[in-house]
């Protein structure tokens, strides 16, 4: 928190061009973070027993959802919306769903095509076309 405060103060100094200028907000935010960090330093809340950190299973869930989501947005430009969406949904559903793989493949494919039709065809939204060209 102290780091955030100093970062804001340094930024305020860098861009300072008067009280009605760009740096005033950075100065205010820095001015809030520095006393906050001092208060947390003086009264640490590390002894707070009510804080429950994620369990092993929760960490694994974070990875199994966050990982494919990150890959989904990273590769969508190459794979295109319908194909990458289908893959992404199928991977996530496979992990969290007790349903059979064939059923997962069918319903995720239907969702990918359905959303593609609604958002791309009817609502004219720009979605990446990828190697399939659709």
């Amino acid at each position, binding site marked *: 928190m102290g780091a955030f405060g100093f970062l804001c103060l340094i930024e305020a100094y860098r861009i300072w061009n008067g009280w009605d200028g760009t740096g005033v907000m950075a100065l205010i*935010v820095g001015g809030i973070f520095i006393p906050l960090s001092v208060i947390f330093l003086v009264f640490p809340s590390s002894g707070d027993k009510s804080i429950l950190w994620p369990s092993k299973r929760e960490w694994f869930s974070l990875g199994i959802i966050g990982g494919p989501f990150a890959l989904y947005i990273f590769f969508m430009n190459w794979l295109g919306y319908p194909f990458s969406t289908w893959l992404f949904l199928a991977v996530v559903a496979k992990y969290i769903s007790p349903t059979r793989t064939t059923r997962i493949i069918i319903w995720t494919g239907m969702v990918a095509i359905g959303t593609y039709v609604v958002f791309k065809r009817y609502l004219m939204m720009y979605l990446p076309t990828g190697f399939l060209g659709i």
Partner: protein
Amino acid sequence: MDIFVLLLRGFSNALSLENLFFALVGSILGTLVGVLPGIGPTAGIAMLLPLTTLLPPIPAIIMLAAIYYGAMYGGSTTSILMNIPGEISSVITCVDGHEMAKQGRAAQALAIAAISSFIAGTLGLMGLTFFSPPLADLALRMGPPEIFGLVVFAFSMVASMSGKSLLKGVTSAALGMLICLVGLDPQLGADRLTFGSVTLMGGLDFIAIIMGLFAMKEVFQNVGARVGLISTARLGSWWRMIKWSEIKQSLGAIIRSTITGFFLGCLPGCTPGIVTFMAYDLEKKFSKNRANFGKGAIEGVAAPEGANNACTSGGFVPLLTLGIPPSTSLAVLLSGLMIYGLQPGPLLFEKQPVFVWTVIASMYIGNVMLLILNLPLVGIWARMVRVPYHFIAPLILLFCFIGTYSVRNSFFDAGTCLVFGFIGLFMDKLKIPSLPLVLALILAPMMEDSLRQSISMGGGSLAILWSRPIALALMGAGFLTMVIILFGRYRRAKAEVHLGTEEN
């Protein structure tokens, strides 16, 4: 001419078969746009604006206004059922609305949202009909120092949204302010906290942040806890969706939020986001049921939804009388008016009375249509909480992507959503409330603009902030609210300590 006569003429025009048809089409399209996560009223109107250019001016504007209203109505659906706030004004509805859905009261939450929207929307329209000129005058008196005063007052809400630890609430708000610093300065274009990155120059998208903090976090938590259904509680018959006693219980909240929403909606720059937060906070202080706020209180849904719709009606006051759009969605609507050569402003009521009163009358009709359309759907939507979570979770993730990506066609925004999903989860674990962060996201840009403009107006001096009575009164009210809340916290803590000593 008498307002009643003009309004009756407006009704006689609006009730023509053609205008009724376009009001209905607009209401349906708006509701669909509102229900689809990520497509808020602004994007909805912008996307459907080209459709209306094929129509004559009156039906076109009736349809656009209906789309706007419809989107406001529909926005609460995903917030309540899936904890996905599609736009800024639905964030606070998630708090109690989704809690109600988890308790098996999704139908009640959706029904009260629709009823509250209808009552507040209609009362707001009455305000627009009868008090437009004096309110427009009031709106003109609100300069940057007064807006700054309002922002300071609104920031006092952090104290009541902080939960058990005020320090954690302030930390959360400070984080929100820090996030708002990233990007180009809105007035001079200088870059702040971008570290040389061109992508960061566009700033962090608000929708991506709130979707991450609410929807994405919810998926992480529920999948980690292997949740089977959003709600395991037994759902009642769909036709018994809401009891009269529940409507009666929420009536006070609806009226109070209508007044708050309408008057604040008249002020330029006061977006529905701020208004819903203020209405919720006000209700939390005045409601008899205040202990249940955040745990599924029905007033916690009625208040923000009512304020949102009243603010929508209030927003038409500066738009029609001064030509000032108070929010981005109304700015898009203004462009729709201008396509037809209509120039909103003080002369619009004199030069185009038929147009203005027909549009106002059609809004009354649109509100009734939306209630009739939405109430029967409530039971069907409510069943969604019984769909197994392993089907819902991938869909929420997909809507998070579409909702964030569609704003600026940016993969970076989708990534931001993911990162804020993690941040939201850890804030939850550390017991840091996320609402002050969202509040700061809304208020910080307003605060910066109004503060800098005020200092410029005062020739570089801050004295202008306390030399204007309205600004001073608002800041004083904010300070007083903060003191009252802190004193209340101190008394509660003292009582708890006293109770603990007696038990020992």
